[in-house]
């Protein structure tokens, strides 16, 4: 807050305006007792938020996603309660209050999240200067300094409370950093470029190579999402088993076992595809022993060439 005051910027948006019109469309079926319970659970009173303001935030959040149900479905009181119990109420209320420009909320946010945000940025960038710069940029963005069509845009509005607010902040920082890195990487000059040596004549017949490429592509596409993720994270990204295990929330040995199963399954599938294309088993095994440099298979492209339409709503502006 002091930083914002120092730069001459202060939140001006009210909570009601930040919640939008959903507050006016308050579902009559929402239980007051439930709101009272949610008010206590949100701990918003610790940073002096009024209960009415908290109720408006909660109602607006529920109206945005219709309690996690499909549209035009009227949620029962149990579904409403289950929806709110599945959220991190304290973080949601704080984020929405900050997005609305509540000063007390910002004070609480700065007190509890400012320094962790800087440390997370430093950890992500690997540099203190870059980390502080990244954290300041995100902080300014969170505060709503960015405007579009004359309206403040606060990324905190997109926080829906399924994970922790600090985790959301870290993920947002990581997104900013990765996107920035990818943008700037294209602009970096290539200092040393070694022209690849001329490939010797392939020992495998071109026809067999084309059959092998087709078989590998089909085999990788046949893997399920988890196996493709394991293969990509391990072989393409170079992540360790422990890192993958922490992301998936499983044990390291489980990742190793699944990874081995994925590679074995992919190999068998390739052999099967080769045999189905008219090769004998022996010829298929010999084809698998071909020099990988003779293959025109881009595993990265192959593994990451699958478009998913699931996240259309997350399209970039």
């Amino acid at each position, binding site marked *: 807050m002091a930083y914002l005051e120092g730069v001459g910027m202060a939140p001006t948006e009210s909570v009601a305006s930040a919640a939008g019109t959903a507050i006016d469309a308050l579902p009559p079926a929402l239980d007051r007792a439930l709101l009272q319970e949610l008010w206590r659970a949100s701990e918003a009173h610790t940073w002096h938020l009024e209960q009415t303001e908290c109720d408006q935030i909660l109602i607006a959040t529920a109206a945005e996603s219709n309690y996690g149900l499909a549209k035009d479905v009227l949620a029962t009181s149990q579904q409403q309660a289950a929806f709110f119990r599945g959220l991190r109420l304290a973080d949601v209320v704080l984020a929405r209050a900050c997005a609305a420009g509540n000063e007390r909320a910002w004070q609480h946010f700065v007190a509890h999240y400012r320094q962790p945000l800087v440390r997370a940025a430093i*950890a992500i960038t690997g540099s203190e200067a870059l980390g502080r710069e990244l954290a300041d940029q995100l902080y300014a963005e969170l505060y709503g300094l960015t405007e579009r069509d004359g309206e403040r845009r606060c990324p905190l509005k997109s926080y829906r409370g*399924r994970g922790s607010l600090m985790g*959301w902040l870290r993920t947002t920082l990581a*997104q900013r950093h*990765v996107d920035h890195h*990818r*943008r700037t990487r294209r602009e970096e000059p290539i200092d040393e470029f070694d022209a690849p040596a001329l490939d010797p004549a392939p020992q495998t017949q071109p026809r067999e190579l084309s059959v092998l490429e087709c078989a590998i592509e089909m085999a990788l596409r046949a893997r399920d999402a988890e196996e493709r993720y394991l293969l990509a*994270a391990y072989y393409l990204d170079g992540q360790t088993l422990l890192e993958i295990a922490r992301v998936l929330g499983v044990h390291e040995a489980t990742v190793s076992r699944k990874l081995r199963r994925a590679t074995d399954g992919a190999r068998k599938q390739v052999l099967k595809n080769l045999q189905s294309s008219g090769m004998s088993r022996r010829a298929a095994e010999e084809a698998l022993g071909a020099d990988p440099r003779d293959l025109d298979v881009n595993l990265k492209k192959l593994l990451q060439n699958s*478009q998913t339409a699931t*996240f259309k709503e997350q399209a970039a502006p």
Partner: protein
Amino acid sequence: MSATSQHEFHPDADSLNAFAEQALVDRERGDVLAHLAVCGRCRQVVALAREAAEAELAASPVPRTPIRANSWLRGWRLALAPAAALVATAAFAIYFHERDAERTAEMAKSEPPAITQIEKIPANPAQPKVAPPAAAPSAKGSQPASSDHALKPPLRRAAPAAVPPPPEAPAAMSQLPMPLPMPGAESAPGAGAREEGSVPSRANGGEMPRDEKSMPAVSEFKQEQRALESQRQQAQTAQSRILAAKEWPPASEQDTSGPPPSNAASSVESSSAQLEVRVEPSPSLATKKQLQLGGLFSARMKIPTRLPSGLPAVSIAEAEHCMLAIDREGALFLSQDSGNTWEHVDRQWTGRAVMVRVHADSTAASGAAPAAQLQAAPANPGAAPSPPPLFEILNDKSQLWLSTDGKIWLPK
């Protein structure tokens, strides 16, 4: 959201964070995972966010437990384990040491009980048979034997190994030295010097002053001391007796009296009153002949001792740490330290000495001893004076020479 990556659509930060925190339902998780499988950018985002979270956890201060007032006791807890181990080791060491000591003592005590039979035979068949004055089988050994034998048969049954003394024992023989009670042995040990192989170092074991009966306190005290001494010496001589049995000398020309014990190699303890024949478990008929008795005198009959002359001793007598030995050539040697060192005694007798022995009844012999020698005996005004031992040398012509110190010999 950024659109700079190769994919047009990405999960938002809330979905990725919820995925990383395992907060998504299965359907949403599958969708995010499918996207991560093909999107390197989102995989990198998730990985970086996870890495930052771990760094935050690592940097978070660890809550420290407050130091309690009794923390010094907690610090000593670390030393409790080695201290307990040390105490246990010491306890085991002490226990085993005590047990070994007890075992050694028991072995020393059990050596005499290993003797299966103790017989009391008359010391000299030529003389009238003598009843042991103190009811020899009794361990207490303090009761007169003459009248109690008939009155207290259970006492006699208590020592089945002992030969009951003849009832016609003359009362005069009660003046003979009393056998001492032997702890661990059923019979009283013989008085005076013993035959070789029994207790070589026991000096004056059976010689009790006759007037001890008139001084019971002194007598009991001396008896206790002698009992302790005999225990110690028995343990010492147990091993030497085993070694001596290997060098059992051939039968000598000593007297044979009394029935030899049958089927046993024996060592003989002779005294003026009685002889103890200890039957050993490995009998040999040849060794029975060596159980020669010396009448009123005692003599060692198996002599493993090597003398300074290089010849084996053929006869040894011992009394009060004073040992005399005669080798095959008839030379006499004297030892004042129970046989550790020997000195040659000049020849003061005629012929060839064949035997040296101690006259058990020194008082009887004291009359024959030279007056000068008898006066040289130290007087003991506090207790009954113990008569000095009287040694005898027997030459090949059956002539006797007497001496009280082993150095000066006078013909008898």
